[in-house]
């Protein structure tokens, strides 16, 4: 299967579940910002979760199918449209060769993930297909997609993928009645982010900590795949020591020298020297991935063990989804 990019959009890259094996050499995790949506898109076409997907940021992108396609997309920020027909999210879609597909604006978020039967076929670099722009490797030649790029799928498909394709194959756009209910994984209030206290929380005065857990913070313009700057009440330190550089990871909330906050995201550095006030619960990172500049968020404290339990429950639910999709075919 093959597509050609007609309009690349603001920032479109190939990502998977990330690159973990070279963290010790300061190679960032990278991977999909919203791993939940990327996994749902993959599951909908019968792929394994770590198959490579395309991460589109905002809408304003367009591609054409150069062969028949079995694809699925999930996330917020764009709705796929073929001619005037809106294509449903989180469900396998059969698209005949020669169909132009547009991403139209959806204000509820900023990132969608496009999966294809078998996964997008780019070489594995250091154990992952994720694009890391700073070092220029991974994904498609280490860069964002551009006009006229041709992207192929890996021809080796799972049995489940083959069955889905067989059931939908047609001479026109076709999809089943079922979809994966992504909203089941999302809280009603998507702007309250759960955090576990960071190791240096005690470096800040009580008023700053209360403020951090009650006042709104605004996602600043200066936000990208490496991290989000957050605007809000400045945090005051009672302990002025320098923190020796140590490991940080996506979800770490650092407080810079001027007292402002940075929430680290997928492409963040592996080590940092700013005190860490909190760590975002892993289950809420997909919510953070859909935030856009100007959004106001609140932080809510949970315990270390609550975060762990939520993570393990989420993984179990996602495993059940795979079984549920397989059981339909």
């Amino acid at each position, binding site marked *: 299967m093959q597509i050609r990019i007609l309009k690349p959009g603001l920032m479109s890259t190939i990502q998977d579940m990330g690159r*973990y*094996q*070279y*963290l*010790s*050499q*300061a*190679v*960032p995790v990278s991977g999909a910002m919203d791993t939940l949506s990327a996994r749902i898109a993959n599951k909908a076409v019968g792929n394994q979760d770590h198959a490579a997907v395309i991460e589109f940021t905002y809408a304003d992108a367009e591609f054409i199918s150069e062969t028949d396609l079995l694809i699925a997309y999930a996330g917020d920020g764009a709705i796929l449209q073929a001619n005037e027909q809106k294509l449903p999210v989180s469900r396998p879609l059969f698209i005949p060769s020669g169909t132009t597909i547009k991403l139209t604006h959806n204000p509820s978020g900023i990132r969608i993930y496009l999966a294809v039967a078998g996964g997008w076929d780019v070489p594995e*670099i*250091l154990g992952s297909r994720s694009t890391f722009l*700073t*070092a*220029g*490797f991974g994904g498609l030649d280490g860069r964002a997609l551009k006009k006229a790029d041709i992207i192929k799928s890996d021809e080796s498909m799972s049995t489940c993928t083959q069955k889905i394709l067989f059931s939908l194959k047609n001479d026109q756009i076709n999809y089943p009645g079922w979809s994966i209910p992504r909203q089941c994984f999302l809280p009603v209030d998507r702007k309250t982010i759960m955090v*576990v206290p960071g*190791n240096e929380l005690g470096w800040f005065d009580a008023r700053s900590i209360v403020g951090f857990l009650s006042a709104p913070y605004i996602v600043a313009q200066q936000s990208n795949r490496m991290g989000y700057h957050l605007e809000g009440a400045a945090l005051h330190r009672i302990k002025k*020591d320098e923190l*020796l*550089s*140590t*490991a940080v*990871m996506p*979800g*770490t909330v650092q407080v810079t020298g001027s007292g402002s906050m940075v929430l680290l995201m997928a492409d963040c*550095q*592996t*080590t940092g020297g700013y005190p860490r006030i909190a*760590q975002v*619960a*892993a289950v809420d990172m997909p919510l953070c991935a859909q935030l856009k500049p100007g959004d106001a968020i609140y932080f809510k404290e949970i315990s*270390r*063990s609550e*975060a*762990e*339990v939520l*993570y*393990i429950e989420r*993984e179990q639910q996602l495993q059940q989804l795979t079984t549920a999709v397989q059981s339909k075919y």
Partner: protein
Amino acid sequence: MADKAFKIYYLSEMAVTVEFGQKIAENLLKAVNSLNELLYRQPFTGFHTTVPAYSTLTIFYDPVLVIRSNLPGAGCFEKVSAYLNDLNLQKKTDNAIKGDTIIIPVYYGENFGPDLEEVASLHQISTGDVIKLHSAATYKVYMIGFVPGFAYLGGMDERLATPRKATPRPSVPAGAVGIAGHQTGVYPMETPGGWQIIGQTPVKLFDENREQPSLLKPGDTVMFKRIDLNEFNELSTG
């Protein structure tokens, strides 16, 4: 780990950090390195990878596998902590680190080291003295961080300590050798940067196509060797 000379803290659902101290010291580098080696030799169920830093080792794991393991404790943090507390690290800490010695060829000054003159005049020494002091010292790699393959080096002659540039450059080339405060280092890839650039190496500090992508690793010994333009060009094409 009988002497309890460490603290374990939560980083996330999938990582804990072991902290041996809060300073830059060779014995802490050894402690971090010993635990790292030991974990790779005797991993626990669900062990994934590590990030060594100056005085900490951060251990990443798969919580789904850890929670199913029969380590004692209710949650993953407790289970991994129990495993780390039971490791017999004591015997190993006296061993020397098995680091390599790596010589990095550098062309100092001119277009390759635009700040060499400034560093020299700031310390009221000649540019030749800066080169001599920089290339005579033996450096120790304490950690890799910031960007892929960037080594934090200890051991620079105090006479070369120089503040960062007031305005960072929008782009510093790959291979640039710089000084910032009491540190010296090599930029593995083109990035913005505020270090005082005194030279450039034709050697690749990071190459994703190499078996070990980062040229340097914690515990390595590094020396800089002055080269001329012919050698620089030969090494660049080679």
